Every structure is written in C-alpha cells, then in structure tokens.
C-alpha cells in the first residue's frame, strides 16, 4: 500500500489545503475499494501499479476536481495567492506607516492626506501587480501541457519522507518578514537608520544604502523560494539545495555589511564596542551615531552566525534525507529479491 500512500501524497500537492484532507480520504477509499473488488484483500504491487496507471497522473486527478484552464491564477494556486496578497498588502501598509511615523515624529516632516493616498495608490497596486505576475508565471508553467512527458509510471512517485515535511508557519513567517523588509528597502530605504531619543536626530545607515541592490536580490530570492515551498507543500532535493545556495549568498551579503560597518567604525576610531561607549561621553551627539552603527554591526554579525548555523543544519538534513531514501531503496530491492 506504500504506492497508494505515495500516490495520495502526490495528488495532495495539487489540491488546495482547505479541501485536501477530505478529497484525499475519499480518493484513498475509492482506490482501496476498487483494488478489493478486483483483486481481493491482498493486491500485488503490480496490480496496484496497474490501477494507478488507469487512474492517471496525480496532477490530472487533482485537476479533475479543479479545472485549471482559462485562469490567470487557477483554483489550485488561488488560496496561496490570496494569502500572500493579504501579506503583501499588510506589509506595504505596515512599511508605509513606519516610514510616515519616522518621517513625522523623528524628522519632523509633514505629509498631507493627499500625499499619503497618492503614495498608497502607487505602492499597493505595484506590489500586487508584481505578485500577480509571479503567480501567472507559476500558473503558466504548471498548466502547460507536457507533450513530451515520460509515460506515467507510479514507481517514480516520491517516497513518503517525514524529513520533507514543511513547517508551514516557519515559511509563512519568513515570507511575512521578507516582504516587509523588501517593501522597506524598495520604497523607503532613506528611513533605515536609527534615532537617539524620540524626536531626536535621525541617522540613516550609509552602509545599507551602499549594498541596497545585493540586499534586494537576497530578499527577492528568499521570498521566491518561500512562495515556491508553500506552493509545493514540502521540501525536495532541489529546494534544499536552493535554500543552501541562498543562505550562502546571504552570508556573503551579511559579511559585506559587517565589513562595511567595521570599516566605517574603524575610520572613526570606534572599531571596538568600548570605543563607542567612550565616544558617547566625549562627543555627545556623534557618539550615539557610533553606538547605533555598532548595534547594526552586532545585529548583522548575529544574523551571519545564525545563517551559517542554518546552512549547517540544512546540509545535515539533506544528508539525513538522502541516507533515508537510500535505505528505503535498498530495502525495496531486498524485498523484491
């Protein structure tokens, strides 16, 4: 029955989450009923395989529940699209509010209601437009007929592997923060910095502005991967390798940021943390700027260490997952022999 489990798992990848459990339970019941009626209580592997071939490719079975044609974003992708669209709108509004807050209360700027509405009219549709384009591309490649596809072979279905299960909330959290950060660096990079006291002077961070393009690439790639993971519903070899690749890129960008802050601080004779503390007493205002930059450097250094740990964890999971599938494959061969 392992083949049935693998088939059900694969069909589930293409069914919206809300109805997935119900549809899959019914599909399982139908498959088992058909097997029992045709072959009795203990069907052979070949008989199961023949039945699955008759039922058709998992993607086609799922599509029969939700016809995909004639949609920009089809029913399978729509729940994910709707969820991400709300995250994007919330992130844009949140980032806009933060930017206005900093502008008004810190820099003492004033914004008219018209200006605020004009800004929202620009940022919200632009963000949603990009989101729609991304999903249209996903939809197009998913719905594209595979004319030269290999013959449908149930034995090629992916193994059931708990290591590939996705921690959905982890991915959604990553997506929320990723989108929020991307909106901030795209629309309001001038407001990334720090203040000493409420209403006090605002210091933009010059190093972040230097590496803005690299940061945007890292954030966009991270959002893309998280979207893809939510769409696929589980880890695969390619996504694990992609995650490791993106993390290595993140380490590179974070290292540049740490080095950049280091050079900036050293040039002001405040390379060490204590130097900045001493500077506060000497130069009242400039000292705080050094402390702020020290805090940014510390935050990026921590992020760098966390990302390195994440890379090592991902490599460990990848090796464990590979060993497990090798073990199952060997077991399957032994059983056949």
């Amino acid at each position: 029955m392992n083949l049935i489990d693998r088939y059900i798992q694969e069909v589930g990848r293409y069914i919206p989450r809300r109805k997935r459990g119900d549809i899959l339970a019914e599909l399982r019941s139908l498959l088992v009923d058909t097997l029992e009626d045709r072959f009795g209580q203990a069907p052979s592997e070949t008989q199961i395989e023949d039945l699955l071939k008759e039922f058709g490719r998992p993607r086609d079975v799922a599509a029969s529940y939700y016809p995909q044609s004639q949609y920009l974003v089809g029913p399978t992708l729509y729940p994910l699209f709707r969820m991400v669209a709300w995250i994007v709108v919330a992130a844009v509004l949140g980032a806009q509010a933060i930017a206005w807050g900093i502008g008004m209360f810190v820099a003492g700027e004033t914004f008219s209601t018209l200006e605020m509405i004009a800004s929202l009219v620009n940022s919200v549709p632009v963000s949603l437009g990009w989101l729609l384009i991304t999903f249209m591309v996903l939809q197009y490649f998913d719905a594209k007929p595979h004319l030269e596809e290999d013959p449908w072979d149930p034995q090629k279905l992916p193994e059931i592997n708990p290591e590939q299960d996705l921690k959905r909330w982890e991915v959604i959290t990553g997506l929320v923060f990723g989108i929020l950060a991307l909106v901030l660096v795209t629309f309001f990079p001038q407001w990334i910095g720090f203040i000493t006291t409420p209403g006090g002077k605002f210091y933009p961070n010059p190093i972040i502005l230097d590496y803005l393009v690299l940061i945007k690439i890292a954030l966009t790639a991270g959002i893309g991967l998280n979207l893809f993971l939510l769409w696929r519903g589980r880890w695969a070899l390619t996504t694990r390798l992609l995650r490791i690749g993106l993390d290595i890129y993140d380490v590179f960008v974070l290292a540049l940021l740490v080095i950049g802050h280091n050079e900036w601080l050293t040039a002001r004779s405040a390379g060490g943390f204590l130097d900045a503390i001493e500077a506060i007493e000497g130069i009242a205002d400039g000292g705080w700027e050094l402390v702020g930059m020290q805090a940014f450097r510390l935050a990026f250094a921590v992020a760098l260490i966390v990302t390195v740990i994440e890379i090592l964890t991902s490599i460990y999971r990848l090796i464990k997952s590979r060993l497990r599938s090798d073990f199952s494959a060997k077991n399957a061969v032994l059983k056949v022999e």
Partner: protein
Amino acid sequence: MMMANVQSEQYQKLTQELRRGILVLAALSQLKEEKYGYALISSLAEKGLDIEQGTLYPLLRRLEDQGLLVSEWNVEGSRPRRYYVLSESGRNTLQDLAGDWRQLTGVMELLLAANANGGE
C-alpha cells in the same frame, strides 16, 4: 469507412459530450438511497453505464456544492467511506429532470425516426 469514423477522435469527443450531459441525471437517479462512490460506479456499470472515477467524484462534489446531494463519512465499516444521498432539493430536481428527459427522448425518437425514414 464507417469503422474509421467510429474510431476517430472526433467521434469519441462527440460521444463524450453526449454522455457528459446525462451523467448528472444518471447519478441523481441512483442516489435516492445513500451510496458511496465505488458502489455508485458499480451500480451504474451494472446497468450499462460505465463512468470513470475521475469524472464521478468531482461531479458528486459539484452536485453537493449545488445543494442537490448531501454526504457524510461513515466509519462503521471496514474503512471510512463517504456516503452520498439526494437532498430535498435534489429529489425535486431529479423529478423535474426526469420529466425533461422523457420529453427530450420522445422528441429525439421522433427526429431520428423521421431521419431514418428519409423525412424532413
């Protein structure tokens, strides 16, 4: 020539279209008493109407969404099964559709008979 026509893809499509139209009525007609999916497929097959599983289940769900069927999981047997049965609205619809069907088949018989006799 005739065989080639029967085998042609176009003919298959036409047959599929013809059958698709009657599936709703066929399924509703068998669900006065509750049945699970496979039992319904078997019941239809016994009476000469083969229907693919991939077609039936989405159809049952659609009819349920339209309020013509109600369903519930029964876990008492050897394994859980989802049983479907006509709702009040489904029973009325079946009655109406059956009337329409009889009228249509009457008309079609006339049309085809006229055609076979070389009439208008």
